[in-house]
């Protein structure tokens, strides 16, 4: 059964259409990477799934339930958590407060403040610091921890490596392996194709708001993805 099912979803920013009638199914425990050039609609799609941006048309089903009209806070309680692009931490709150505020409003489960500090040891010494004063890597770890403590069934990660030093990216992905390894369903938007292919089970490539390539990482070549990424190939679908 699909955890997430998108049917002809349209997302618009005013008159500008960011996502065009997109269909997508994501299964339980899958890790799916959405790749595409800037402006492909990846972030708009994730934000629409999380409820941060309303879908103009189409249906978003989560665990069989139509959540298209639910506000973001109710989708979170249903089990969808987004780590937004740019982290979007509450800069005036400490690391601990950022995590606790999400824990309080999220769902009960294995993830809590202590589990996050264990998964991201770099945060332990920073827990009482204001989130606005952290380094990029520490902020990203806090943002991921903040999403995890809501104990989501579906974790959406938007460009978690953006703006980070390579060492920090490696740290973040090392910690994410634990999340992915625990059987969680994860959708990540990633610019780094190699990292996306190394992390995900399946790749979805978007171009100008449309899904142009979809397939298991093991069945797609870098050339196929690069070609779709830059719009050099007509819409094609690999095995999934």
């Amino acid at each position: 059964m699909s955890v997430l099912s998108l049917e002809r979803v349209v997302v618009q920013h005013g008159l500008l259409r960011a996502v065009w009638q997109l269909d997508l199914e994501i299964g339980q425990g899958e890790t799916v990477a959405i790749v595409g050039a800037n402006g492909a609609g990846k972030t708009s799609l994730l934000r629409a799934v999380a409820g941060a941006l309303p879908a103009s048309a189409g249906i978003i089903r989560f665990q069989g339930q139509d959540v298209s009209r639910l506000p973001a806070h109710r989708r979170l309680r249903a089990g969808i958590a987004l780590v937004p692009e740019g982290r979007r931490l509450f800069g005036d709150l400490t690391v601990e407060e950022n995590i606790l505020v999400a824990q309080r409003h999220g769902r009960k489960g294995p993830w809590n403040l202590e589990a996050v500090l264990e998964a991201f040891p770099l945060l332990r010494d920073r827990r009482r610091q204001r989130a606005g004063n952290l380094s990029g890597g520490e902020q990203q770890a806090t943002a991921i921890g903040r999403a995890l403590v809501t104990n989501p069934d579906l974790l959406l990660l938007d460009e978690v490596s953006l703006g980070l030093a390579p060492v920090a990216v490696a740290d973040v992905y090392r910690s994410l392996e634990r999340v992915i390894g625990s059987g969680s369903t994860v959708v990540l938007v990633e610019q780094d194709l190699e990292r996306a292919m190394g992390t995900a089970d399946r790749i979805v490539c978007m171009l100008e708001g449309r899904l142009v390539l979809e397939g298991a990482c093991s069945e797609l070549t870098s050339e196929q993805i690069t070609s779709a990424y830059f719009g050099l190939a007509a819409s094609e679908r690999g095995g999934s």
Partner: protein
Amino acid sequence: MEWVNAVIQGILLGGLYALFACGLSLMFGVMRIINLAHGDLGLLAAFMLASLSDAAGLSPFVGLLVVLPGAAAVGWALQRGVLMPSLRAGELAPLIATFGLSIVISNMLLEIYSSNSRSLDSGALETATLKLNDQISIGGLGLLIFGVAVALLVGLQLMLSRTSFGRAMRAAANDADTAGLVGINANAVYAWAAAIAVSTAALAGAFFAMRSSFDPSSGPVQLIFAFEAVIIGGLGSLWGTLVGGIVLGVAQTVGAQADPAYSILVGHVVFLVMLAFRQGGIFAVEARA
């Protein structure tokens, strides 16, 4: 010794200003809304207490048990029915909406109660004094108002910093869109913030009405003092609000000591000096130091 007395009386008066200002500061800090009806909402509570006193002979302190929950409900409804819809029309819309509300409330009060001045009877507190020496004595009511103001501001600060609701309020104030992504219903948080703010305005209105005479046109004047206290102390800072209220109160009483005609003027001058040289307010300057 007369000047020392003026400073002490100013500190106590500052408590009332801080009480009026804390709701204004809270609404601005959480929602970035300046509620121009804040003074009138306080005054509305004072008239409600006067009506309860006239109709049922209730002391204003007992009347507050009815009026404060009512004020909270008004604040909630104000956020849901007026501020939230007006926010969608842009940042200026809530300012205009609350300005309109201020006019509606003052005209409604004028229609119902006429323009006659009146005051609330605080009973034995009105004449109770604490004598420090032959020349300085502190009024019981002033002391109570100051104590309530400090307790309220400390309580609000503790609520914001130590409770999960306070964290949610600060998170929503920081970034309402992202607050939704961590499960916070920002509109509900805003409605609670408005409920608390209008309740504090009602409390301040009640104490103002016990301390001096009031009429339907008194609201905007209290709004100006509250606004000045917030600016002097530092916009959005509760500690700053207390400090700002005290500075304004002391400026007015020291000005009055020099010449009673200068009382209000000196307060306004201090406010203007602060605007000209320390726009962030006293608290913001201290925080940077």
